[in-house]
């Protein structure tokens, strides 16, 4: 049971690390555009075919 003395503080540290990593990612702009990136692979490079209505752009 004594291992809990180590495991509980460790769990707090791990949450702290996860939160720090998430904050770091947000500050780096990883979550700035969640919608367009999803459709990036489907988008054609040809600008003329990209009628403004057809792809669901939500930027």
């Amino acid at each position: 049971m004594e291992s809990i003395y180590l495991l509980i503080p460790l769990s707090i540290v791990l949450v702290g690390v996860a939160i720090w990593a998430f904050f770091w990612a947000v500050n780096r702009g990883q979550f700035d555009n969640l919608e367009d990136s999803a459709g990036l692979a489907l988008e054609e490079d040809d600008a003329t075919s990209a009628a403004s209505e057809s792809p669901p752009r939500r930027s």
Partner: protein
Amino acid sequence: MNSTVTAPLLLEGHWTSESAGEGHVVFNAEGIHCGNCARAIHRALDELPGVIRADVNVVNSRVSVTWDPAKASLGTILGKVASTGFRPVPLVGESAVAAQRNERRDAQKRIGLAGLASMQLMMYAGGLYAGAFDGIDPHWAEILRITCLIIATPVLFYSGAPILAGAIADLRRRVLGMDITVSLALVLAYAASVLNTFRGSGEVYFDSVAMFIFFLLLGRYAEMRGRHQASNVTDALAQALPAEVQRIDPATGAALRTPLAAVRLGDQLRVGSGQVIPVDGRVLAGTALVDESLLTGESAPHRRAVGDLVLGGSINAGGTLNMTVTRAADQSTLHGLVRLLERAQAERPRLGLAAERMASWFIVRVLILTALVGLIWYFIDPSRAFPAVLAVLVATCPCALSIATPVAIAAATSRLSRLGILVMRSDAIEGLATLDTVMLDKTGTLTIGQPTVTRIQTSGELSNEQALAIAAALEAHSQHPIAAAFRPYRTPTVTCTDARDIPGVGIEGSIDGVIWRIGQPGITLSDECGRLARFEVADELRPDAPATVQALRDLGLQVQLASGDSLAAVERTARALGIAQAAAALKPEDKLARLRAEQAFGRRVLMLGDGINDGPVLAAADISMAMGRGSSIAHAAGDLLLLRDSLGSLPKGIAVARDALRIVRQNLRWSAAYNMAAIPIAAVGLMPPWVAALGMSLSSLAVVLNAQRLLRNTREAH
């Protein structure tokens, strides 16, 4: 028009405009999330001497102020807003983008922390819960509780900070907002848990607190996204302009970088490929493909050649242009559009107001109910009084109710703007959904509004192409509207330099040494040797007009035609489109009378016109839509503005508006039903606080996600 460009006054990034001795500014006030916040700002501004009018829109947190520059300054107005606890943020430009980005990132961090912490807390809570059944050494239970306390504290004070701050601001202003009941629940639960932790006995609610905050923030995040999307149209417009332009020095011909604010009327500018055309102007040299999608929503670029008008805010997609500035930056099409939109968005929608009133009515009763529940349980079983009070507070949070309408309206506005329809008045969506008659103007609405050559007859010596080229060369010098029909046929090889306008007859000029004349009778081209060509010019129907009229009929709408044009022309159009009710040769007052007659029958009429000539009729219609394309935008009046040069968006827009109204009703019904159902269950003590938190949050989320359905493109497939 001024001879110099008066740069819009920039104070800390705020664009203001002055007209008729009144200053006007629109800005975002950060932190508005309910009707009470809006009312507080409104009240503060009304107290300020010199403020003529103030509007606060709760949906997109926009504040619009008109003031007397002699009595107040922008600085005092912004200061007053700031003193009520809301930060005024410029609407356009870099700082507005940064403000939106920061708001989004802050929200993401708060959600992330609350989410990660909630997961962890649930594990400890699981341990405590299992321990309560199987027996746990009080020493270990104490360690778990303290761990929960450590992790839950940043959730409440960092993630929950906007909620707590909102409640404090509400208290200071002595208004009842949603944040008060929510904060009361959070603080009570947290305080009791801390107390029990140190006492070493009793329940702890740390996991419920964190989860409640997490779900609350998720709902608010979705609502914030909707708000940002709705304001993106304006922002995209306003941010389109570059800070610097290339001005051509008339002496040397070299292009020098100059701030946009220093550009004067008549200046010559160079716009390279890929650059934004900064102001309205006329092409002096070069041709280029110009993408006007920002202003018109039309994605296909247009070729613009010497003499053509180009609009500020459009993008030069290929080729280099030299242009003269024909309109000041603050009078350009773009600026006019931004200003119109800003004012429109600063208005408060009636639908939203009703929901807000409902919410604040609701909160008073919730607080009374909570007190009663606590009191009753105190006499029955004091140990169950506290969880019941918490559950009631959480379950009754009218979050879903108060965001039900704004999120749907914001989503519909964003959806419509992608169809090229700008919502100028916030009630317009409701109007668009409930109309039953569409009255259409003919010229410029159903027709292109630009004469085109429909028939050519030549006497034999001339080919059609030659005749058109010669006619175009001559008509290039004419101011007559008919002349526009020949513009596409201009060629650089056939030009006329000495053309004269003979009033009442036509144009005369020499081409390759031969004198040509075009004009009466009809449109006849003739030279001295008697070579002849006759043209017929007509205003063609828009290609999508028949499909649009059919689509409107499919929506169950009655379609009428009301035109000032001659009977023959109107009949031809009406027959082509299959419109039974068509009236010709109507003066504006006749149109108005027709409209009034329809309204007297109880019909709700949409008037679609070009926005300039149809002003009075548009104003009298239940809902009006103006074809506000190109440079006429700034003068266009209407509840809705159709930016695209096609009619097809109208039936689609009506379908979107109907969906929006349906979703608003669904949302209101759903959230009211949820609250009604949850309150009794929570009051009798059958709902633990964490279930209440989950239910409340899910009901908000359901409302938001329901509204997001409007953003999908399902209706455009056909």
